[in-house]
């Protein structure tokens, strides 16, 4: 991952985490919390490919584990976001072809993330995970993320493309300023 990528990722992911932790839970939304961190991470992953997607997913999931007031073990979100970033990266070529793919991708990953979290929680015998809890969270989580996608993912994709000049040989390497 280049320095430009790292800087842009930090500049987009940290505010998303802040927004999610501090503001979004206060909205009187039933069921679930919108997940801008996941969306921003996926937007970067569909441009930068599966390897950086997995890495960014791991890092943002780890950040969520460490600073968000969840009660799960450290590493649970890291595991799930890592897989989500990888999947988003794999879908990069399809996303180029149609915008609808992004929506499908987000819906699939959002649902997959909730189910995977429940599965890992169930595996660790988390008393909060139950069929009812899953059923009440899942549709809302998917709906909020899909609704939020048009406002978050296209700008993130545009930014991620801009920071990454297509013709690398014309770009001046970072740090060599003249």
């Amino acid at each position, binding site marked *: 991952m280049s320095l430009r990528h790292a800087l842009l990722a930090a500049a987009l992911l940290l505010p998303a985490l802040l927004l999610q932790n501090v503001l979004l839970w206060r909205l009187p939304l039933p069921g679930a919390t919108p997940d801008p961190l996941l969306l921003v991470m996926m937007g970067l992953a569909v441009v930068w490919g599966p390897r950086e997607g997995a890495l960014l997913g791991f890092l943002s999931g780890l950040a969520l584990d460490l600073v968000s007031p*969840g009660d799960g073990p450290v590493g649970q979100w890291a595991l799930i976001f890592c897989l989500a970033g990888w999947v988003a990266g794999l879908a990069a070529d399809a996303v180029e072809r149609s915008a609808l793919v992004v929506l499908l991708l987000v819906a699939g990953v959002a649902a997959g993330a909730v189910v995977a979290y429940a599965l890992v929680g169930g595996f660790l015998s988390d008393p909060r995970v139950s069929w009812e809890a899953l059923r009440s969270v899942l549709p809302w989580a998917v709906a909020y993320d899909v609704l939020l996608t048009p406002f978050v993912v296209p700008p993130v994709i545009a930014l991620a493309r801009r920071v990454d000049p297509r013709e690398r040989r014309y770009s001046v390497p970072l740090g060599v300023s003249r």
Partner: protein
Amino acid sequence: MRDSRRTRVVLALLLLASVTLIMLDARSSSGPAAWLRSTAQSIWAPVQTAFSGVVGPVVEFFDGLGDDEQARLDELERENAELRAQLRTSELARNRAAELDALLRVAGAGQYRTVPAQVIAVGPAQGFASTATIDAGEIDGLRPEMTVLNGDGLVGRVKSVTQTTALVVLLKDATSSVGARLEGSMDLGILTGDGTDTLALRVLDPQVTIAADDRVVTFGSSGGSPYVPGVPIGAVSRVESTPGQLVRLATVDPYVDFNALDLVGVVVEAPREDPRDSVLPPKPAPSPAPAPEPAPAPAATPTPSPVAFRGSRG
């Protein structure tokens, strides 16, 4: 796919790292994972606190949305009257002061020694837990298993602390279980959360008569930990008919609005005596007809009266 082999190696390593972390954290509460969490929180908490302060006015706006319409109307009327009387006070500062007032009233009535704290973050529902971070920690005298309350009633309990922050498990969380007592009696029950905005009350004596609007306070754990006695929890909204069962079931609406948490108090010292029902506000009139308050006479003194403040954050 560009060098997919390297990608697979990276993915495998990252997944392995995640699973290792999960195992480390699940096995002990004081390992490298806990240290990592504590360090990260001490760095991140000031940022969150600052951001919380900035978005305060935005939050004030959103807090009002989504309430029941009639309740909203009543609230607006009351709020209107209040605002007319205090035009010049800034809304935000006034709300903060009112919350502090209410917290002080509760703490005073129950003889609880509390440390005030601000809720700075709440976890996503996708994690299935209802938990919040507050901006007070070990250096403020907080320890795990302390009661958290606000001016409306019981909020939850402290689960773990770092130097400057603490994790609060909210009352509505599915792992919350509180010994409760019906107002004016010694009838005990157990309140459990299930992640939704209502609580389930199981009263242990099947002969007890429960009615809607019966109020419920904490019974108090032994040694006042995790729950001190006498903290208002909520009012019964529905009683299930459970003929032939060993317990009576009821649904309780908590007094605390978990979507609008702001200022809370952590009870660092339990009262010497059980405050019984004294912390509950005076019982409201049977029919809460919103009698128009007598128009505020041209007051000679502009000091706002410290009236009991319930749920009228706007």
